[in-house]
């Protein structure tokens, strides 16, 4: 799940982890009530600072995506449909932004990009 975590990126690790978990919850990869690995387990598994994992979990809790229960661990909250939709929308915008930025660097015009988009999505719905 966390194979994309890149310590060299400008985005802090805790943000990357929180983002990944957020979209996983929104997409239903992680269901409500499911337990997340403990801070200790995840830190050890990913070989990153435990404080980083703790920060990610805290951020998720602040956003209402998870619940940290003393002594028991961290569990996925039952995020309302609207919350999940909002997260998916947010992530979609993030993906498009990345694509547009890269296209811009390679001098691909917005029209060319739009055409490619339609082509790919069109072929997918078939």
């Amino acid at each position, binding site marked *: 799940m966390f194979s994309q975590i890149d310590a060299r990126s400008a985005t802090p690790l805790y943000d990357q982890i929180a983002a990944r978990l957020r979209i996983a919850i929104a997409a239903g990869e992680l269901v409500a009530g499911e337990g997340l690995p403990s801070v*200790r387990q995840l830190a050890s598994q990913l070989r990153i*600072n435990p404080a980083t994992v703790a920060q990610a979990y805290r951020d998720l809790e602040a956003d209402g995506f998870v619940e940290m229960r003393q002594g028991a661990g961290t569990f996925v909250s039952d995020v309302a449909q609207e919350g999940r939709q909002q997260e998916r929308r947010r992530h979609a915008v993030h993906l498009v932004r990345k694509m547009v930025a890269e296209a811009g660097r390679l001098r691909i015009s917005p029209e060319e990009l739009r055409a490619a988009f339609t082509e790919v999505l069109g072929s997918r719905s078939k």
Partner: protein
Amino acid sequence: MSDAIITAALQYRVGRSFEISHLDLRVPTGAIYGFLGANGSGKTTTIRLLLGLLRARAGTITLLGQPMPARAPEILARVGYVPEQPHLDGTLTVQELLQFQAAFYPGWDWSLAESLLGQFDLDRHRLFGKQSKGQKAKTMMLLALAQRPELLVLDEPTDGLDPVARRDILSALLEFVAQGDATVFISTHLVHELERICDWIGVMDNGHLLVQEPLLQLKRGVKRLQLSGLPAGATPPAPATLLSREVSAPGMETWTVRAWEPPMTGSIAALGATVLMETDLDLEDGFIALLRAFRIGQTR
């Protein structure tokens, strides 16, 4: 006790060749502090000074709130040390080494030792000297962790190891850290490893401490800027520092800076210049730029 390690104006010299001058280290309790520097920059010497293996010429060292080397035996009971080179008796088996350490450290935890033995897949009846490099490194880490120390001082613990051994050692270390509030002082020249696990960073070069701050802060502030319309001799606004400058045309410069903050673009505009592009540098590039700048004498 707010800091696990404090040194003030630490000085050391060996003949004429090497010196450490005015080292002011500050390692907060509970931090994983990465001590970064090129080979030969003085990292191992600093560690030896911290642990009382070498005597400083001047300055003070406070470890876990107590002065070194005055209170060395009491302090060392709470410190786990993994040196660069294997330092244990090669004629003893792993089991005998465990028994040896257990006799000296009041905090020794046999159940942790046993569990790490299994985790590291070490043969307890094997002579220490007959193990592979990775196994020796694991044994030394095991001995340090099973003491349940408050402070771990690690000198390049994964250097030269195969990826599997490195992974096992780091996992065990992080698991241990996650359980309590041990402080870790890890010296390394492996920037990528440091980037993952450390929350504080100290950069050393040629006996001097160039930088000492939270890792995220350093990373956020290190940028490459492309500027145009710059008046000659312009410098970034304080507290940002210029690490390197490339002039491609009059007014067109590429700066590598440290401690850059977004509002500073305003001061650049005030000079009549524009920031054409701002790129984040990864830690390795930042580290190289920092070292280069120091060696040329541009920083401080």
